[in-house]
């Protein structure tokens, strides 16, 4: 029959080798955050974008010191061309365009940051719950996201803002409360694949509570795509606020927003004869959205798991 094999040595390997493996004393591997930072800094456009965003942020913070005039003050010059006194001219009721441009950066940044923070928080929790618990909870949540994602985003926002009334707060709230479904889908997908991994199962076997596993173990590993989504989402929110304000359904005068500064250009005379009124705010929207999108692209490349290692 099948031979006499009674040796008790470990099979295929010999004996009691000392327990040391590859020694790594001294030289430690790069930490994760450093590696991400290094990869991000290699993306030249993203670095430029970060620089531009930093400048806009400083502009928003120090607006009162930077603006040459009070943005609400009506001067004697109406529709004034750019001059030494008013570098970018004055608008139809005589307010300094440059000052309004500087103050308007506050609106864009506040909308971008707050609205995105709201919907990322909602979307992350909803998506995590759907992905982790699965079953009918997942089914119901996913159908709800389907419902909300069927409404063209800009259109439903326009309609709701027109129903609830347009103001800075309402724009932020509507954007924040309606933006979550795409984040929820994204997070659900990550959680679905992460919960299959052994470290999650180990956590369950160790008796770690479900919320702790979900928020302490699974979500920290799903941050990369959320961060990328949030960055692109911020660019989208800045753009949406500008578009709403342009149509007169967002931030209303006298408060200055880059979008509502363009509203007047819908009249052909302003468009033709006073380009200083509409070109600068348009360029500001373009530049800030572009900068944030570059940052998003840099983050996406830096955090791409396929490119790691």
């Amino acid at each position: 029959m099948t031979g006499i094999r009674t040796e008790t040595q470990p099979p295929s390997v010999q004996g009691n080798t000392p327990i040391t493996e590859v020694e790594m004393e001294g030289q430690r591997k790069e930490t994760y955050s450093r590696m991400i930072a290094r990869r991000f800094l290699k993306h030249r456009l993203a670095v430029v974008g970060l620089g531009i965003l930093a400048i806009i942020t400083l502009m928003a913070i120090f607006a009162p010191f930077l603006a040459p005039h009070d943005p609400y003050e009506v001067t004697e010059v109406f529709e004034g061309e750019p001059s030494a006194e008013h570098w970018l001219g004055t608008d139809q009721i005589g307010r300094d365009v440059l000052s309004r441009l500087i103050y308007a950066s506050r609106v864009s940044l506040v909308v971008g940051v707050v609205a995105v923070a709201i919907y990322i928080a909602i979307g992350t929790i909803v998506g995590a719950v759907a992905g982790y618990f699965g079953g009918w909870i997942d089914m119901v949540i996913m159908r709800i996201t389907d419902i909300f994602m069927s409404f063209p985003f800009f259109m439903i926002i326009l309609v709701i803002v027109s129903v609830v009334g347009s103001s800075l707060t309402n724009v932020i709230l509507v954007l924040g409360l309606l933006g979550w479904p795409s984040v929820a889908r994204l997070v659900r997908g990550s959680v679905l694949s992460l919960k299959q991994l052994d470290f999650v199962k180990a956590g369950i076997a160790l008796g770690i509570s479900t919320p702790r596993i979900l928020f302490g173990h699974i979500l920290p590993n799903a941050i990369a795509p959320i961060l990328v989504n949030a960055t692109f989402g911020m660019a989208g929110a800045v753009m949406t606020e500008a578009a709403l304000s342009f149509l007169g359904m967002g931030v209303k005068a006298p408060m200055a927003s880059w979008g509502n500064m363009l509203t007047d250009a819908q009249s052909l005379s302003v468009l033709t004869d006073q380009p200083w009124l509409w070109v600068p705010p348009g360029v500001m929207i373009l530049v800030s959205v572009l900068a944030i999108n570059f940052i998003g692209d840099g983050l996406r490349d830096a955090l791409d798991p396929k490119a790691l290692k």
Partner: protein
Amino acid sequence: MKKNSISEQVPILQVEQLKTYYPIRKGIFSRTVGHVKAVDDVTFSIYPGETLGLVGESGCGKSTIGKTIIRLEQPTEGEILFDGQSISAFSLKEMQGIRTDLQIIFQDPYSSLNPRKRVEDILAEPLQVHQLLPKHEIPRQVEKLLEKVGLPKSYKDRYPHEFSGGQRQRIGIARALSLNPKLIICDEPVSALDVSIQAQILNLLKDLQHEMGLTYLFIAHGLGAVKYISDRIAVMYLGKIVEIAKTKEIFEHPKHPYTQVLLNAYPVPNPRLRSKERIIVQGDLPSPVNPPNGCRFHTRCPYVQAVCREKEPVLSSDEHAVACHFPLA
């Protein structure tokens, strides 16, 4: 071990007629059209301080047994008795009470450690959750655990990606040990490692067993690893146990043809000791959705008879148990 020590001892774990089925859903309304019978009526016991090796091809359900015992999978039927308590019907909350006694080591050391946590956090968390130690003693305990598994305590600040596969597996072992368990399910803990590292991990597990009086259910797909570490071996085929006996018995007097096939796959270092007649199985593992009638091995068994196709053999209840109509002499 003494001759009849096994029958006198009280088992730490008894698995009785355990079944773990996965539903297969199909069609427009996702009706359940069948089941994958991953574990199909399995009975065995493990005694304190021993290592039971559980061996079989991939897909035979051996890992599912381990995961069902620790309730990472839900049992469909049957009973699991741990320390005299029936835990198979425990709610997840009730399971919390025995988590400290029952732990698991995973196969893949790369996915079994949270990449965002430092070693110290990985090892400290179970201690914090179960409040086994006062807070200020936890860092000491973490260092002790690292030393126990042969890692310098200075490694506690590092992240998993800074370690090799073998070192990660040591951390996984340390994590399982952190709660001071009685029984550890080792789910193919060396299969993913380089051959040279495998022996180190096996030795470590053996040393820890002596030191801490641990009991192991050691799952592997080859007889190689289990031989070195196991007191007894159970051989699984298609969701069923076909043979259980002491390691020496399995190797010297295999009774089930399938066991013999597995032994033939095991390389013998000395060519003169190689048996002349090698049994080779033909065909693939049949599907666990529709397992063959009668003896499940009959489609591939070299000694198949008419009765094997009709009647399913029962696992005998003696110390060298076998489920075969015509056990080998």
